[in-house]
């Protein structure tokens, strides 16, 4: 494996309670694969499209009108940092999807800026996923995905799409931005499903 540098540890602190291969971080690294969209809330919308093509739309006021939850969860980025007990406020997807008529097994999250990521429907329900619009008591920064991002903390954080604008539901699984370029289709950090085939 080449030359080992004694005294090089990076900025890592390993902990037994983290998923395998993850290291603890205190700050909140910003990962970006493109320019940061700056979406004003008056222009924001969130659209769920069912497998039959039916559209369910919320604007910002509509989202704010839904019951919100306070969420405190650990998050795990596939680039190996984990951050513990991050606190968010947002609307559960159970709430948003309650009146959506669907039997779809899969969803594709779409974001402002063109990002996509695929998720099984069952990972979006039962208190596992939210549309989050506050982080640490403040509106989510654009660089962290504001005004609203998907939050699916039990999967690697690339699944928690920043600048989310909608979900397209489907009977068949399609792959998103990173999943078509070598990343795992599901991404369970506890099984270390980083790359396709892991």
């Amino acid at each position, binding site marked *: 494996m080449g030359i080992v540098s004694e005294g090089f540890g990076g900025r890592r602190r390993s902990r037994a309670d983290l998923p395998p291969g993850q290291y603890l971080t205190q700050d909140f690294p*910003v*990962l*970006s694969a*493109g*320019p*940061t969209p700056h979406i004003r809330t008056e222009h924001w919308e969130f659209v769920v499209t069912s497998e039959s093509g039916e559209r369910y739309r919320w604007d910002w006021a509509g989202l704010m009108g839904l019951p919100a939850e306070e969420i405190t969860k650990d998050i795990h980025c596939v680039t190996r940092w984990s951050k513990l007990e991050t606190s968010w406020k947002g609307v559960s997807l159970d709430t948003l999807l309650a009146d959506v008529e669907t039997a779809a097994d899969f969803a594709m999250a779409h974001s402002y800026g063109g990002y996509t990521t695929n998720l099984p429907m069952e990972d979006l329900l039962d208190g596992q996923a939210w549309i989050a619009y506050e982080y640490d008591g403040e509106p989510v920064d654009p660089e962290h995905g504001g005004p609203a991002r998907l939050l699916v903390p039990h999967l690697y954080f690339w699944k928690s799409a920043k600048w989310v604008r909608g979900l397209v539901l489907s009977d068949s699984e399609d792959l998103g931005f*990173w999943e*078509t*370029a070598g990343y795992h289709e599901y991404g369970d950090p506890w099984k270390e499903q980083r790359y396709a085939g892991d």
Partner: protein
Amino acid sequence: MKSEASDATHLDGNAAAGALSALFAVDITSAIARCSGCGQTGVFADTRLYVDAPGLVARCAGCDGVLMRVVTTPTDTYVDLRGLTYLKVPNE
């Protein structure tokens, strides 16, 4: 002025030279690249490269469309060139 979406988190296409030299026998960063989205054509080194991500993403300086993605796993490298109509490399 720059578009509202423009921010200063990207590098130049030059910065992909290491990863690309591990894949190609010629220097891709000095090749001419054509964006399949808007048709902008120019040297790959002038594209916008995002490296703070799970992979390398090169975007068109004209339309921000994705030109190229490179993901390196422990065993393989994935190269997606869908956003490029062509790369032009001199024969010398």
